[in-house]
């Protein structure tokens, strides 16, 4: 049924560090690669070499500019994928039951054999996390790499989502956000992790960590004593010699 579970035993999800992400799009490619070659319909591209290429992706990196009232503007690279919401509106609108949220770990999935491709779940999602595949005409979304994280045939270090595994800067973290002692939960608590569009009432599981402040000058800097009182050694000799000429 497309009713939501009252609670989930665990809340598996991602914590994305906007301070660390450099916008390399490696997670986009790793996601597309894994999810094209493994579970479910491949993520198709249409008109890939034509004038208007378009394709299905489960993860995309936007870049935003933040201009504070005083001080320089800051660029923030912003990876965005399914947030596996506790109150996922994409699940309840589904007329066929193809869309569901798992009670055991909170992952929101699509049973592609039941999907009629009506697209209403994509309309219901405020984050743009669901796209219709241009070839298979079923709705695609982040599975949190459910075929990696429980996959005993993979080495233990690979049992995490492809985007997390590939990120060269460690900007993406995977774990159980229902457990307050988990590494991701502690990270959220320490860094002030926040929800996207909290007013939409979706209660997202994934959290975002804010960028740290940069490019701020110490207000006492002009009052500090000069570091180099006078050149010594070779530079001192050069200085004195040039002074004499």
């Amino acid at each position, binding site marked *: 049924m497309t009713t939501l579970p009252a609670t989930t035993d665990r809340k598996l999800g991602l914590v994305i560090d906007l301070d660390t992400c450099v916008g390399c799009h490696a997670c986009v490619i790793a996601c597309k690669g894994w999810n094209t070659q493994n579970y479910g319909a491949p993520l198709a591209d249409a008109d890939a070499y034509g004038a208007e290429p378009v*394709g299905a992706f489960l993860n995309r990196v936007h870049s*935003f500019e933040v201009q504070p009232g005083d001080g320089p503007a800051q660029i923030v690279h912003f990876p965005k994928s399914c947030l596996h919401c506790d109150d996922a509106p994409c699940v309840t609108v589904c007329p066929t039951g193809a869309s569901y949220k798992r009670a055991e770990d909170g992952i929101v999935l699509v049973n592609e054999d039941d999907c009629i491709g009506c697209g209403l779940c994509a309309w219901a999602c405020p984050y743009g996390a669901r796209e219709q595949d241009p070839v298979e005409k079923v709705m695609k979304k982040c599975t949190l790499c459910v075929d990696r994280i429980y996959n005993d045939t993979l080495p233990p270090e690979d049992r995490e989502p492809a985007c997390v595994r590939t990120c060269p800067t460690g900007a993406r973290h995977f774990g159980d956000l229902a457990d307050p002692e988990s590494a991701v939960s502690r990270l959220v608590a320490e860094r002030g992790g926040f929800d996207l569009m909290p007013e939409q009432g979706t209660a997202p599981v994934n959290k975002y960590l804010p960028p740290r402040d940069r490019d701020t000058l110490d207000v006492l800097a002009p009052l500090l004593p000069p570091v180099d009182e006078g050149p010594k050694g070779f530079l001192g000799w050069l200085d004195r010699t040039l002074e004499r000429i």
Partner: protein
Amino acid sequence: MHPAPSLIAFSTLSGLGLGLLAMLGLGLAPVAGLTGLVFFALAFALAGGGLLSSALHLGHPERALKAFTQWRSSWLSREAWLAVTALAVMATYAALAILAGIVVPPLGGLGAALSLGTVFATAMIYAQLRTVPRWHHWSTPALFLGYAIAGGTLLSGHVGPAAILLAAMSAAQIAAWVAGDARLAASGTDIATATGLGGRGAVRLFEPPHTGGNYLTHEMVFRVARRHAVKLRVIALLLAFAVPVAFLLLPFGHILAALAVLSHAAGVAVQRWLFFAEAEHVVGFYYGRRLP
């Protein structure tokens, strides 16, 4: 939102057809004899044709029967059930009235309630979406029901009531447009909450995730030029309400009545195009949409 032709045809035709079915069920249109047959045929053609065209919108129409399973949570599933039961009940009512000459008012009343219930469920598919603030309001089902009742009254040939209802609906539509224009800004969702970076300064999209479009931008970030929107609103008001009312006030004739109905249907189609084209989805904030 992308104004898909199949969805516009569906909601325009099925709205008119279900409105006429409600009139027939309530005994407010002739249900017996040849006249009754013509009315029922028109109503079923409009309602059934509209519902079939909605299946064209699906990626996998061959799996459409699965859409009957989730009526507990999904308005789309409820719409499917209501549409099928409304058509079945009204078909029974029509067969009894035309073939056997027996009119069963309770059956007709049930059919009328189910017909209007279908229109309500269709509207709730849109009104439930918090992601589209313009639709997320009680006025969306109220307008859809108003259009169905006014259209049904017009189709069933009640000249005086139809003129009054059409005039009232034009005022309601103008009020809905004006109120709807302010709803995105009032929703509290903007690029600041979408990124969570609003507390740090003014946020704007620096670079989209890719240079081309995608399913989301095609489906939900459709933009209509504002000056065209104003022109189309005027065209919708003229076609849906002003022209039919003018024809109704002239001495009654079948040709004028048919022209009034065609004009109304064309006006409703324009209104439905605007209903989709003007609706702003909040995902647009991730793709550079700004508040007006």
